[in-house]
């Protein structure tokens, strides 16, 4: 990905920001120029790709589930109006429908899928359906939406989630969208999914994960204000840890300027309850959220 693994940012380190902003900036730096993204409607994924297009990957293009192709959206969005909305679809190159998005991804035209999720497991499987024992005692969630198609059909899937114990598990309570399934070689192909696709990265406000050659989640980099131990303490099932865990750069003033003034001036997504971090020029200090 452009700027390698997202640990490098251009600009002046920001002195104060929240961890949601950190997560969005990290993903933005991973966006590859002149590639296509199927971006889950709204939230972190869309702000990350919009920020990337502004700063790092001007030639990246994205589609959304409603068949918007390569728009130049009119920002900011009204709350939840990120699909089938005139501002979100503004100045697109083409307008289609949900089957347009599904078919184009099925054809292999989408390089990356960018998603939020509720729960992820050691093989990158995604749960957005139910927490608990499905069909018995479970809390019901909304279902995969477009995520199943994104995770199945885009060449590489990048996941955004929070760094919380219950979100990193050995096996998700329900596979809503496919990662490496049971983790065995060829498991996706045996299920009819296209070869060469699958989980690529997971990004939280504290960390970035990739996958080992045997398809296991691996901690690859950490935010400068947290230790590997702190991260592992927030994983119910411990991921593999890379021999060398990189250190992510904090957000830059340039990134926050665009994020806060252009993309999300109301802080609808970037202002979510999340801890604040201050940088005194040498060290980052986290104020409990």
């Amino acid at each position, binding site marked *: 990905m452009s700027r390698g693994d997202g640990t490098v940012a251009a600009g002046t380190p920001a002195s104060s920001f929240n961890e949601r902003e950190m997560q969005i900036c990290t993903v933005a730096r991973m966006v590859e120029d002149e590639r296509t993204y199927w971006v889950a409607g709204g939230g972190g994924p869309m702000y990350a790709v919009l920020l990337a297009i502004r700063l790092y990957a001007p030639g990246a293009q994205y589609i959304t589930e409603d068949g918007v192709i390569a728009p130049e959206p009119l920002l900011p969005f009204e709350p*939840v109006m990120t*699909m*089938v909305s*005139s501002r979100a679809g503004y100045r697109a190159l083409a307008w289609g429908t949900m089957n347009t998005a599904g078919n184009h991804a099925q054809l292999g035209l989408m390089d990356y899928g960018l998603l939020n999720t509720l729960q992820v497991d050691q093989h990158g499987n995604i749960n957005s*359906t139910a927490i608990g024992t499905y069909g018995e005692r479970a809390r*019901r969630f909304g*279902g*995969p939406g477009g995520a199943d198609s994104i995770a*199945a059909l885009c060449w590489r899937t990048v996941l955004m989630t929070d760094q919380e114990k219950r979100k990193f598990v050995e096996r998700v309570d329900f596979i809503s969208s496919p990662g490496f399934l049971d983790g065995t070689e060829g498991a*996706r192909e045996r299920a009819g999914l296209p070869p060469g696709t699958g989980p690529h990265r997971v990004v939280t406000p504290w960390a970035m994960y990739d996958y080992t050659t045997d398809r296991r989640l691996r901690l690859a980099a950490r935010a400068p204000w947290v230790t590997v131990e702190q991260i592992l303490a927030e994983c119910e099932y411990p991921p593999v840890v890379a021999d060398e865990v990189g250190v992510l750069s904090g957000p830059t003033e340039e990134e926050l300027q665009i994020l806060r003034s252009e993309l999300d001036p109301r802080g609808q997504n970037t202002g979510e309850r999340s801890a604040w971090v201050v940088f005194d020029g040498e060290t980052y200090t986290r104020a409990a959220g």
Partner: protein
Amino acid sequence: MRILAEGEAPYLAVDPDGFRAFVRDHKQRALKPKLMSAHDAISRFVADGDYFVFDCNYFQRGPSTLVREVIRQGKRDLWLCGKFSYVDVGLLVGAGCVSRIDCGFFWPGATIDRAVADGRVRVFEYSNVVMTLRLQAGAMGLPFLPVRSFGGTDGFRHSGAKLVEDPFTGQPITLAPALNPDVAIIHVQQADVYGNARVFGTGIAHQESALASKKVIVSAEEIIDTEEIRRDPGRTSVPYYAVDAVVHAPFGAWPGNCGGYYGSDTPAVIETFAAIARDRVSEYVEKHVAPFADDAAMFDALVGQERLEKLRAAETITEGYRP
């Protein structure tokens, strides 16, 4: 072509021949005016127990006026095509209209959580695209369509899909069962009295839903002259012979955004989310639906012309929406 795996969930019976026979006997080939009130359209064409699909959703060029009318008339035992939905599913569940849901996506919350936990509502699992693909199969008069996603998920296990050996490549391929709903409700920007309908902007599956469904109700911001349809046939999204009722519904997508016509009503949007989240749908219905004969009365009482005009003015984008 061996069957390698099958989902275990009940699904609406696949019967393309039965659908053809229904189309032959009930779809109007002649150009007959179909303009009627939301009340008449819903009472005539939505029956308890119907499989029910709405296109788009309550916030995004969706048939919100028609959804409110379904709630007003207290329809029961509906089987929802719950794709690309924010609050629609929650509202209909909270209002007691629903017994089954095919899930693509809906906004979760206490209302649905409770209904599922109590066993009042059963949920079968798909994805948004698998649901629109099922509608496409139905709209093509086919029994199924293949798809390269969905296989291997737990959704597949709780669906009506099958994994088979592709007779052309020998590889595993998922087949999604066709869906021919009993009724579809769709909101569009423009339609003529015969049901020739124009959608501007992106959409979810308006064309698929209209062609796949036995009974089709289209609500439109504007009723336009058929001469206008004939002047630009490339703009027709749904042809008249698929449509059973046309409802003139200005602000029919309120509180949502209707591209080129009006912006979303943010406080009303947030109020609706809150009703679902806190299982206060009955209060929502008591306030927005029950007291009023129709949406016009509701708009007068709760929103007001001035507010509606503000929403119109807030929609500064017309490119691509106003031919």
